């Protein structure tokens, strides 16, 4: 069972077998309102800790996302393209954003 770690911004990361899954906290999704669009990086993008890796858009507000650790993006949550609301409904499970090597 991997522990979920929280950044001092609004992201969490949960690491298992060298791969970290990144998402935003319940507090963050609540503050954002209904997410209507997720702007996520391409697979293979190299990120340093604290790098901006994308943004979540709710109606009329775009909120930046910051990488909790250094690594490379291995997967992005394809379900969010058609269903961005998953970030609000299930921010710790189905609403994950990216996976990265750590």
């Amino acid at each position: 069972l991997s522990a979920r770690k929280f950044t001092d911004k609004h992201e969490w990361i949960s690491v298992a077998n060298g791969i970290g899954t990144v998402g935003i906290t319940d507090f963050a999704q609540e503050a954002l309102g209904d997410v209507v669009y997720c702007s996520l990086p391409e697979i293979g993008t190299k990120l340093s800790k604290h790098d901006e890796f994308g943004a979540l858009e709710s109606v009329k507000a775009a909120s930046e996302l910051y990488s909790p650790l250094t690594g490379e993006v291995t997967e992005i949550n394809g379900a969010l393209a058609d269903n961005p609301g998953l970030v609000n409904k299930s921010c710790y499970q189905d609403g994950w954003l990216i996976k990265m090597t750590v």
Partner: protein
Amino acid sequence: MVLQPSLKNCFRLSCVLRTPKAGFRSTASGALIIQSVSNDVYQNLAVEDWIHDHMDLEKRQVLFLWRKQKNIKLARRRSGGGTVYHDLGNINLTFFTTRKKYERMENLKLVVKALKALRPQLDIHVTDRYDILLDRHYKISGTAAKLGGTSAYHHCTLLCNADKFVLSSVLKSPYKGLKSNATPSVPASVKNLFEEDPSLTSEMLLDAIAKEYATQHQIDHHITLLNPADETLLPGINNKTKELQTWEWVYGKTPKFSISTCLNMAYKDSLLDIKVNMDVKHGRIEVCNIDLPEQWLPPALYSKLVKSLTGSKFCPNETTTLVTTLLRVCPQDDELHSRWNLLCENMIMLM
């Protein structure tokens, strides 16, 4: 209208921008009001980016006032939300704060208070959607925002004296058969404040809002003029301005959409109904299907066309270049050339 900021103002601004903790006699540390001397949309959006990235908003919040000139340029802003039409009669206000102090409602209430102080008879209020309505019905302001790690900005517009005719024709989408996951636009009736009270000007509104902001932040009612092209004052600003104009930013960030439509082409004695389906992602054509009658174009040529379009920009200029190049390697056959041109003209008109 380009005013040169005085040397004194430049000095103060550069100090403020570089060492925000430096104590200033007249600007108390609470806040700063800046007005752009430029009406260029890209330069002003670049200033927003610059302030967002470089200024320490913990000690000093900022109000940035600006307007955009009339020749219609397309710009993508970094905050969310829908399309806005701007000319000099539609002003912009950007409220910069730390992320913790991000408060759109408070900002809009400030604007309403300023307007009411100027013209007490105005019936204006803020809605849940962060719009400002005149006479309970007409939208005079819309809002968008960007939240960063530690800083945030909320910008909004104010319709003073914009050209409503151009506004509604420009905001109308010509595309039929376009599907995407974009948030549906909420149309609204609009009105200029000038129509309600012809004595009002954009300058008066900007000034009234600056005055209210100054009162609420307990600072001097002083507006510092800013030249958004000044690289000394704002290191890196010209790069930001350039980036905002690149195809990659303006069009290349477009979320996935698909077009499913019919080209109605009159060719010789017949009327052709050609079904076209395209999937476009990040401004590039991912999938392209053109339902031509069999042998209308030689199959080899058709497949060359589709292959070339796939992966290229959904852009009339790029497509024109592409099809012109392809035509050069075609046999000199007038019939073929005229069919090709007809089809390509229609395809380009879709973009």
